[in-house]
């Protein structure tokens, strides 16, 4: 139990240490800074790829953080900032892929497969409920009888 608690503590601390934003990069207005962080968390670092630009120490991620904050300070809306980056790097830069025609299979595929599975499973269960086994024929009745007799003796 103690070990578990220690592991959890380390994980939580490690999580907070992964924050890469330098205090000098932050916007003076906490509200604007919070918006910048929220936008940045949705943008992929192009160098490390599985981190957002808020988490990454890569130079390019830092540059993008600076630019996101500049645009927010200049009065851009969140979606304008995202569009600015997407127009240069494509949808790839979004950690959460957008819902559009080319990504329909990505978003709805799992749901469709789940529904198909449910339909299939219910039809299987229904069949199992309905079908009664055929009655034993003469040969089987005799064999059953002899087995029961054998067991008794």
């Amino acid at each position, binding site marked *: 139990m103690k070990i578990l608690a220690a592991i959890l503590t380390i994980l939580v601390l490690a999580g907070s240490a992964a924050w890469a934003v330098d205090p000098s990069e932050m916007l003076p207005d906490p509200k604007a800074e919070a918006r910048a962080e929220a936008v940045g968390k949705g943008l992929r670092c192009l*160098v490390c790829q599985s981190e957002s630009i808020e988490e990454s120490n890569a130079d390019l991620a*830092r540059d*993008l953080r600076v630019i996101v904050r500049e645009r927010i300070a200049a009065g851009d809306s969140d979606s304008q900032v995202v569009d600015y980056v997407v127009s240069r790097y494509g949808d790839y830069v979004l950690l959460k892929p957008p819902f559009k025609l080319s990504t329909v299979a990505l978003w709805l595929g799992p749901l469709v497969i789940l529904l198909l599975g449910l339909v299939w499973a219910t039809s299987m269960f229904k069949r199992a409920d309905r079908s009664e086994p055929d009655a034993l024929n003469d040969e089987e009745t005799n064999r059953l009888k002899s087995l029961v007799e054998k067991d008794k003796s």
Partner: protein
Amino acid sequence: MNRLAYLLPLAVIAVLAVFFFIGLGRDPKLIPSVLIDKQVPDFTLAALPGRGDTGLSSADLKGHVTLVDIYGSWCIACEEEHPTLLAIKKSGDVPIHGIDWRDDPEQGARWLIAHGDPYTRVGIDPVPGRTAIDFGVTGAPESFIVDQNGVIRFKYIGPITPEVWRDTLLPIVRSLRK
């Protein structure tokens, strides 16, 4: 139920396996550029000290096919491609313009003296590398083939090798000249 229906899950797995197998061979670092067939971004970059040119701007990319190379003196892979760029300059196949990305001007100038200078014009893109970001650059070196009208026609990620130049980039440059 049709007996073939039992093979359906197997067929689904087989199709998925094919997709995943293709996916295994793909390099996740190769991000398709959204800027292909678009006008080069507007930029004006200052010159490196002592180089004698006036820097590089988007206007310099019009009128002829050019290779725009984004590099930096801090970039090891750029040293690797440098001999190829020098050979291209010698061949006179296409003018190469350099964007010295996230570099210190003095250091950038020294690097070109030390390693040779294949560039017609060089512009320095200081931190936070706005022009490189406008080009959708993910790392150095990256190179763009820009046509006579200033439209980006091809992007190559990574160091240009003699083979890449001969088999991929040069044919594109030649076809754009026509």
